[in-house]
């Protein structure tokens, strides 16, 4: 095959190029011609097309995401948006980096590999910052639990998250599992990874120092995932198009584990001046990003890239998304030491180029020049769109459809039946079927993991310093009011971290939306970003980075706007963390913190019992959330509480169920007012707590000082969940309802 060289491109300006098939708009193609002053070579066209795709360029979201950069400075933020992941100071010289990423489309096409490589990709992002990855979390959303396609997708996704994460030796410390019609055909597979390093060990993606070597290391480059980013993540699914299976990458967690250990040893020996992982857009992305953040130029000899398939074209090599690869910039006198560590870990490495200050990225293939571009124009100067946005026409009707019209349970038996029915729904039921497939113990620093409200990790064995992490999102709230829905996601993740006794210090986001070409979706997106930014401003939290996933829609139907928020908290002493179960000490008294209002818009009750979505989501009071967090932190430090548990999806009914079933110790509860509202309202800003009489008395004083409403509910004990006005429920019945749901749907795991 004839190679399309730079020289040939200059001489054949009228040669027709398939830019549209590569996902570029006509205006974008002409912009590339203007930049280069000629037509691009086919290799250049491949690079621009993947780097200017929605997935890589954030061209539709950029104008909105700028709000996050406008947030007030945080003393804790060491590296912000723009790098592979943000970095936060957690004290004592430790820095934590964390980020969530979506792998929605690949996981729908090939559930196991899609999810597995989702884990692999985000872990490399964290590694690239110089950190040791220490845990993962997996917020997952699927179509109806009893749908045939969910039975195809969910087991594969769970096995993929587990198969990859378990093999890397990363504990899975939490996540989410939610089902909704809107995710049928568009499952959301988001993965968060967190890593830790010392302050001085932070690494950046840049290629400084002319003369430095460019080294590719890790797996060989193969023809997998070619155009994965541009094709899979940037278009909606359409039944009429051919199957897209070949675009999904295949993961090899063993190689990634070696890559992690190899990198950490290389970092410890101070052998790199810049590093970047290969994710979406592969070599195109890594070389252009490194070059534009460093000396400005780079020359790459593509023939030096180790290939798995010798028949690959140069365009394919530049676009390949083969997994488990990294790119390092190494000073010439350190190359031998670098390669020696790779040899020790049996990691393949090759010098493929040199940094220069030419201001150009040049790529050579079989002795011919095939790329000659200003790297910044590929990596950062892509198109930016201010897409039209419009409030959906049905938004008013949706909000006017108040759940007050829905029939409510009234008698004691009806309330009991409603509670059991809700707790046996997959959205609220026990998630062990999923979480037992994940290793939560490896590395020996997991203090809390699911089903606790947040994952808690010990960072330092001597000082007991640690971190807490939670991810939350609620597409139902988002659909009713994307601004409030996004704020509620921030509030819930913040609260989940706070109920462990941790101080929330930073957030990351994973923004899952429909097509940005639809004004209604863009309005939702813009509202959600406003909501997150305003919430962060009020709570004093920086946004450290994030991920945007558009085109989550099949045909005309977009998913509910689903921003998933990850909140990081810090604990000075993880031994003081709070847990959610009743019964660790005898004689516990129980109380509710926060205010309960009759709020059922978007609630689990409305959805599960009536199949209803309408009205307004629960009201947001971020100042109240901050006060609640203050009280919880003080209670944890003072040892006043023996249990604390967030109230959210499913209301107090779900919270109580989880707390009594944790250690199998029941409770006697009396609620002020209507027991239906008390049990099933999803008012935000609330936590259920338990403690000794003396502990709760001390808490009561603190609550009065800080301004947090506190209501006594009763005491723990017995083998029933006994609520005034509700027929008592033996724990054995409650447990059956709660634990049987997922095994019944996805196959009982026998032996038990």
């Amino acid at each position, binding site marked *: 095959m004839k190679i399309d060289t730079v020289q040939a491109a200059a001489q054949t300006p009228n040669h027709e190029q398939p830019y549209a098939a590569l996902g570029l708009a006509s205006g974008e193609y002409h912009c590339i011609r203007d930049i280069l002053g000629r037509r691009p070579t086919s290799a250049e066209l491949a690079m621009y097309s993947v780097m200017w795709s929605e997935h890589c360029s954030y061209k539709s979201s950029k104008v909105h995401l700028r709000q996050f950069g406008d947030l007030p400075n945080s003393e804790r933020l060491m590296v912000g948006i723009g790098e592979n992941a943000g970095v936060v100071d957690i004290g004592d010289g430790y820095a934590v980096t964390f980020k969530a990423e979506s792998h929605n489309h690949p996981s729908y096409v090939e559930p196991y590999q899609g999810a597995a490589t989702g884990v692999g990709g985000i872990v490399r992002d964290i590694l690239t910052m110089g950190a040791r990855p220490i845990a993962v979390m997996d917020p997952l959303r699927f179509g109806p639990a009893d749908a045939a396609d969910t039975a195809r997708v969910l087991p594969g996704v769970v*096995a993929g998250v*587990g*198969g990859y994460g*378990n*093999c*890397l*030796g990363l504990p899975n410390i939490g996540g989410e599992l939610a089902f909704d019609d809107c995710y049928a055909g568009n499952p959301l597979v988001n993965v968060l990874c967190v890593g830790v390093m010392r302050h001085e060990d932070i690494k950046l993606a840049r290629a400084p120092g002319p003369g430095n070597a460019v080294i590719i290391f890790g797996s060989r480059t193969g023809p997998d995932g070619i155009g994965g980013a541009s094709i899979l993540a940037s278009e909606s699914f359409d039944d009429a198009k051919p199957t897209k299976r070949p675009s999904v990458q295949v993961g*090899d*967690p*063993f*190689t990634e*584990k*070696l890559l992690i250990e190899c990198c950490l040893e290389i970092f410890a020996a101070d052998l790199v001046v810049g590093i970047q992982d290969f994710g979406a857009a592969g070599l195109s992305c890594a070389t252009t990003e490194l070059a534009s953040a460093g000396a400005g130029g780079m020359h790459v000899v593509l023939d030096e890239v180790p290939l798995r398939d010798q028949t690959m074209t140069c365009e394919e090599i530049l676009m390949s998304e083969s997994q488990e690869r990294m790119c390092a910039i190494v000073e010439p006198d350190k190359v031998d030491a670098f390669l020696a560590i790779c040899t*020790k*870990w*049996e990691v393949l490495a090759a010098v493929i180029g040199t940094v220069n200050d030419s201001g150009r990225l040049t790529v050579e293939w079989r002795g011919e020049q095939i790329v000659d571009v200003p790297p910044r124009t590929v990596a950062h100067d892509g198109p930016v769109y201010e897409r039209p946005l419009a409030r959906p026409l049905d938004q008013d009707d949706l909000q006017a459809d108040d759940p007050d019209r829905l029939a409510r349970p009234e008698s004691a038996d009806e309330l009991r039946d409603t509670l059991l029915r809700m707790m046996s729904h997959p959205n609220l039921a026990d998630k*062990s079927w999923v*979480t*037992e*497939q*994940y*290793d*939560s*113990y*490896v*590395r*020996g*620093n*997991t*203090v809390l993991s699911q089903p606790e409200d947040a994952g808690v990790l*010990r960072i330092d*064995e001597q000082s007991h310093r640690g971190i807490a992490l939670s991810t939350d999102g609620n597409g139902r709230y988002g659909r009713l009011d994307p601004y409030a829905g996004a704020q509620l996601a921030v509030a819930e993740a913040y609260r989940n971290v706070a109920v462990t006794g941790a101080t929330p210090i930073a957030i990351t986001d994973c923004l899952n939306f429909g097509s940005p070409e639809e004004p209604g979706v863009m309005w939702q997106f813009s509202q959600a970003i406003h909501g997150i930014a305003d919430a962060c401003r009020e709570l004093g939290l920086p946004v450290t980075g994030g991920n945007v996933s558009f085109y989550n829609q099949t045909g005309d139907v977009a998913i509910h706007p689903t921003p998933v928020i990850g909140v990081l908290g810090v604990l000075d002493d*993880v*031994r003081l963390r709070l847990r959610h179960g009743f019964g660790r000490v005898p004689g516990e008294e129980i109380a509710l913190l926060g205010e309960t209002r009759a709020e059922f818009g978007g609630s689990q009750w409305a959805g599960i019992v009536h199949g209803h979505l309408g009205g307004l989501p629960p009201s947001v009071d971020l100042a109240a959330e901050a006060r609640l967090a203050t009280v919880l932190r003080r209670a944890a430090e003072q040892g006043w509480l023996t249990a604390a548990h967030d109230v959210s999806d499913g209301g107090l009914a779900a919270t109580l169920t989880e707390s009594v079933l944790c250690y199998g110790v029941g409770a006697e509860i009396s609620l002020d007012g209507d027991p239906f509202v008390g049990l099933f309202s999803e008012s935000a800003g609330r936590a259920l707590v338990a403690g000794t009489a003396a502990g709760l008395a001390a808490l009561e004083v603190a609550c009065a000082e800080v301004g947090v409403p506190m209501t006594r509910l009763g005491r723990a004990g017995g083998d029933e969940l006994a609520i005034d006005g509700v027929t008592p429920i033996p724990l054995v019945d409650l447990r059956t309802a709660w634990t049987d749901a997922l095994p019944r749907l996805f196959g009982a*795991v*026998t*032996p*038990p």
Partner: protein
Amino acid sequence: MTAAVPRPGSDDLAQVRVGIVTFPGSLDDGDAARAVRLAGGSPVALWHGTHDLDSVDAVILPGGFSYGDYLRAGAIASFSPIMREVIDAAKRGVPVLGICNGFQVLCESGLLPGALTRNAHLHFRNRDQRLRIAARTAWTGDFAEGVEIVVPVKNGEGRYVGTVETLDAVEAEGRVLARYVGGNPNGSARDIAGVTDPTGRIVGLMPHPEHAVEELTGPSTDGLGFFTSILVSISRAGAGTAA
């Protein structure tokens, strides 16, 4: 090498050096080292690619996915350079504990009978597991006979199998180290969670005692018993006389 005969006591235990092998893909090596340290001994890191056991008094083969477990769990690791030395040392009487993947390696090496196959339900499973200690060995001397403990179990290929003759012999010779109680997590034959060689020095266990050594991070501290047992056992015998 020679050493003074140590007296029981923490100083003597601290002199017991327990080697922990890191294969490519080992994951619980750090946890095993922590467990040895918390039990009062001195963990020593050993590398798969060498023939150097560094004169350790005992060896632990940790959990993980050695060499990716791509052929068969533990199969490739059993042919690694360090395993040559471990097998020789084991035959000379140096105590060896294989946990999870390490148990698989010991079976693949022929040091322990039987084999570990894909869980009966085909899922990876991680949960807190009750076990009954069924044999007195160098690694279980600190446990009262028949005592029940709780430690995590986490594996995808943890189903212990053997021929009827093998299983009968293992049972008849009192070589069942521990049995699953309150539910068999992977379909193991006769609820067997671990086995020992006839000397009680070479021991394999599917569950993870190294994850149950601290109240803060484990379901119990029951796992510590395995590590204190070996330290005491070696200390009494005279540290430094082994590998």
